[in-house]
């Protein structure tokens, strides 16, 4: 019997870098206020829930409509918002579905260049494979400090 050392650190699941790239595109489109590009990262039946809101928002049209309002409001106030993603943990559910959990820090900069942290949240997402790309099917955002 050979004495094979056991790996202490396991590799990230296959496809992890694809999920990282999905999020990078998704967040850049969101922060750039690019509604069309952002919509392309969502499923038609996407569901958005937040612990600061009683009812989830359902469907791409509703979710993107809300995103446009938010982007217009930020533009009017001259504020840039950035969604910072970290601690991304990806678990395979089946061939075409993954559960992804990450921390998201919302950083805002007002005109003049002063940046501040606006929110600290945890995101629990379900992503589904569609052809050669990933799409967001559901998102549950939990804002820290809100019970």
């Amino acid at each position, binding site marked *: 019997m050979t004495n094979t050392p056991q790996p202490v650190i396991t590799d990230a699941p296959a496809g992890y870098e*694809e999920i990282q790239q*999905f999020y*990078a*595109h998704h967040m*850049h489109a969101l922060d750039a206020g690019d509604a069309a590009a952002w919509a392309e990262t969502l499923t038609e039946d996407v569901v958005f829930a937040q612990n600061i809101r009683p009812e989830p928002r359902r469907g791409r049209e509703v979710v993107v409509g809300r995103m446009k309002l938010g982007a217009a409001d930020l533009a009017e106030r*001259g504020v840039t918002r950035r969604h910072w*993603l970290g601690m991304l943990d990806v678990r395979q559910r089946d061939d075409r579905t993954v559960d992804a959990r990450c921390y998201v820090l919302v950083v805002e900069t*007002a005109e003049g260049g002063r940046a501040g942290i606006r929110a600290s949240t945890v995101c629990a997402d379900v992503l589904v494979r569609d052809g050669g790309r990933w799409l967001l099917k559901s998102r549950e955002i939990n804002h820290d400090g809100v019970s």
Partner: protein
Amino acid sequence: VTAPVPAALYRQLEHFYRRHWRFVDDGDVEACGRMFAEDAVLVRQAPPARMRERQAEPERAGRDRIVAGLRRVTGQRAAGEGTRRHWMGQLTAERAGEDVVRTRFATLVIDTPGGGRPGLRTSAVVEDVLVRAGEDWQIRRRRIRHDAMV
């Protein structure tokens, strides 16, 4: 939405930038300079007060001038402005030819004055054009755009 780059390339780029920001924040100007191509161009869009503060130019062409700028900022910090850390995230990458990659990412600059509390200084987006240089990559063009620039 562009197709994701292969995992191996993405990991290579992440490694490239980890080294890059380490060199920048450590003030290792020479090592950092080698990550720029000889004919590199650095374009910066920041509020006027920030540009004055660091004597930045909207466009700096050539590795030598980029390195000179880095050296000056590193010197200012060493002279008592405290410590600066660049955090980066949301890296996207897109192939633009056999030996060319376009990347984009967000950066947060965190400054800590000597004996003081750390604070967010700047949130910005950086877009790079990287060219293959042997086994590694070099920055040929960099565009830094601070947030909330009108």
